[in-house]
C-alpha cells in the first residue's frame, strides 16, 4: 500500500521544483546522485540503536534545503505522508525490547525506544535526502546521470519515456475518474468492476497513443536505438561538491564527532 498520497498535485510540485534554479540545481546530476547514494548507505550502515551518531548527518539535507530554496514545509509534508509503513513496523520495538540501556536525567531509556527513534531518524534522513535530490534535479538530467554511471540504455530510455508520458496519462486517468464520479451517487472509490472498465479504456487509449508515437518516431528516422547528446564534463565546482560531502560523510561515519562533543559537555 502506497500511503495513499499519490496526488497529481504533488507530482507536479516536485517536478516544478526540480526545474528551478539555484546553486544546488546547477550542480551536475551525477555528483548529486553519487553523494545522495553514499549518504543513504552511510545512514543505514549504523548500529540499529544509533541515534546520536545519526543526527549530525542531518547537516546534509538541511544545508541543501537552505541553499536550494526548496520549501521545508513541502519536504516535511511529503515525509509525513509516506511515514506510516516505517512507523507501523517500528512502533513494536519499544514493546518488544524493554531492556534499559541508558538513562538521561533519571529516566531509563530502553533499547526498543532507542531503535524505534533510530528508525524514525533513518527514515527522515534517507527519504528527505531523496526528496531533496528530486526537488533540485530535473528527471531528464537524473536519467542521463544514471546512463553515464553505467545503467543500461534500454532501462534509462524506459525511465525517461515513462516520465514523459506520466503527466499526460495521470491527467487522463484523473479526467476519467471525474467522469465516473459525476455519474455515481456515492463518494466511495470505484468497485473493482468499475475500476476494471476504467482501466480497460485507459489501457486501449494508451496503446493507441503508443502506436501514434511510434509512427512519429519512424518519421524522424527511428531505428530502435534511442540517442541522446552527451552531457558536458563535470566542472570543478561539481567535483568540490562531491568530494566535500563524501569526505564529510566519511568523517561522520568513522570519527563519531557527536560522541566527542557529547563527552566534552557531559563527561568532561
Amino acid at each position, binding site marked *: 500500500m502506497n500511503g495513499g498520497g499519490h496526488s497529481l498535485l504533488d507530482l507536479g510540485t516536485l*517536478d*516544478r521544483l526540480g*526545474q528551478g534554479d539555484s546553486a544546488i540545481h546547477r550542480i551536475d546530476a551525477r555528483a548529486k546522485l553519487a553523494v545522495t547514494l553514499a549518504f543513504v548507505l552511510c545512514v543505514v550502515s549504523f548500529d540499529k540503536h544509533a541515534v546520536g551518531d545519526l543526527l549530525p548527518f542531518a547537516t546534509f539535507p538541511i544545508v541543501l534545503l537552505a541553499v536550494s530554496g526548496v520549501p521545508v514545509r513541502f519536504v516535511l509534508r511529503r515525509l509525513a505522508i509516506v511515514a506510516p509503513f516505517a512507523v507501523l513496523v517500528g512502533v513494536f520495538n519499544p514493546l518488544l525490547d524493554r531492556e534499559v540501556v541508558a538513562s538521561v536525567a533519571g529516566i531509563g531509556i530502553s533499547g526498543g525506544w532507542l531503535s524505534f527513534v533510530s528508525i524514525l531518524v533513518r527514515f527522515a534522513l534517507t527519504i528527505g535526502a531523496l526528496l531533496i535530490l528530486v526537488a533540485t534535479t*530535473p*528527471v*531528464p538530467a537524473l*536519467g542521463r546521470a544514471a546512463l553515464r554511471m553505467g545503467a543500461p540504455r534500454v532501462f534509462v530510455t524506459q525511465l*525517461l*519515456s515513462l*516520465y*514523459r508520458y*506520466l*503527466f*499526460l496519462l495521470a491527467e487522463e486517468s484523473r479526467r476519467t475518474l471525474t467522469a465516473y464520479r459525476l455519474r455515481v451517487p456515492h463518494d466511495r472509490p470505484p468497485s473493482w468492476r468499475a475500476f476494471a472498465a476504467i482501466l480497460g479504456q485507459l489501457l486501449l487509449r494508451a496503446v493507441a*497513443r503508443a502506436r*501514434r*508515437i511510434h*509512427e*512519429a*518516431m*519512424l*518519421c*524522424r*528516422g*527511428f*531505428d530502435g*536505438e534511442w*540517442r*541522446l*547528446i*552527451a552531457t558536458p564534463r563535470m566542472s570543478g565546482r561539481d567535483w568540490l561538491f562531491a568530494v566535500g560531502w563524501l569526505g564529510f560523510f566519511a568523517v561522520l561515519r568513522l570519527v563519531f564527532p557527536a560522541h566527542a562533543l557529547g563527552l566534552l559537555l557531559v563527561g568532561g
Partner: protein
Amino acid sequence: MSHHRVVVEAVRFAYPDGTWALDGVSFELGHGESVAVIGANGAGKSTLLLHLNGILTADSGRIVVGDLPVAHGTLTHLRRTVGTVFQDPDDQLFMPTVFDDVAFGPLNLGMPEADCRARVRDCLERVGAWHLRDRPPHRLSGGEKRRVAVAAVLAMSPDILLLDEPSTGLDPRGRRQVIELLRGFAHTKLVVTHDLDLVLELCPRTIVLHEGRVAADGPSRTLLGDAALLERCGLEVPVAARPCPRCGFAPGLAEG
C-alpha cells in the same frame, strides 16, 4: 525544380475491416506549392497523409515523392525528404526535454554531435523556442508544443512539409503564431485541416476529399465559396468567405 514535387496516382487503400479509406485518389503537388486537404471526418485525409510519409502502404496506385516512388527500399530517403507534423504534439514530442526532442531526428540521421547542437539551436530559434530548450514537453503550452514540434521536423531539413491539423487545440494567439510561422516557410506544404479560415490564409490551392475520393481540386477562394460543394462534403463555408451580411459583398467570388 522538379525534385520537390509529389505525384499521387490512383491510390487505393482499405482498412483491415474492408472499408475503402482511399478509393482512387490522384493529384500532383508542384515545387513550393502550399495546398490544403479538407473533408469531413472519415473522408480519408489522415490516411492520405500516412501514405505520403510511408507509414501506410497503398494497396494499389503509385506515389512519387521527389524523383523516387514510395516503396520499402526508399523509406529512409522519403523520411529525410518529407517532414510530418502530427495532429497531437504530445505524440510527436516523445523525448524528455525540448532539446533532446529536436536533436532526435538529426542524431538518427547520423549527424555529428557538434553539427547537431548547431542545428537544434538554429531550428528552435526559427520557431522562437530556443528559451524553452531545457523544458520537458509537459511543461509547455499548446502553442509552444506545436512550435517545438515544427522545429523537431525542421531539424530533419525536409523539402516537403505535411501538417495534420496544425491549429487544433490552440488559443487564438497560439493559432496566429503558428500561421505566421508556416507562412514564412518556402517548403512545399500539404496541410490537412478543418480550419477553413486557416486555409484561406495559408493555402492558395485546396483539395476536397469526400468518401475516399477527390471531390474537387482548385483555387481555395473558389472552392471555399462553393456552398453546395462544401455542403455535399460535410463542410460549410468559412466565415471569411461568406458574403457580408450587410452589403452582400462576397470575398471568395470577388477574387475567384
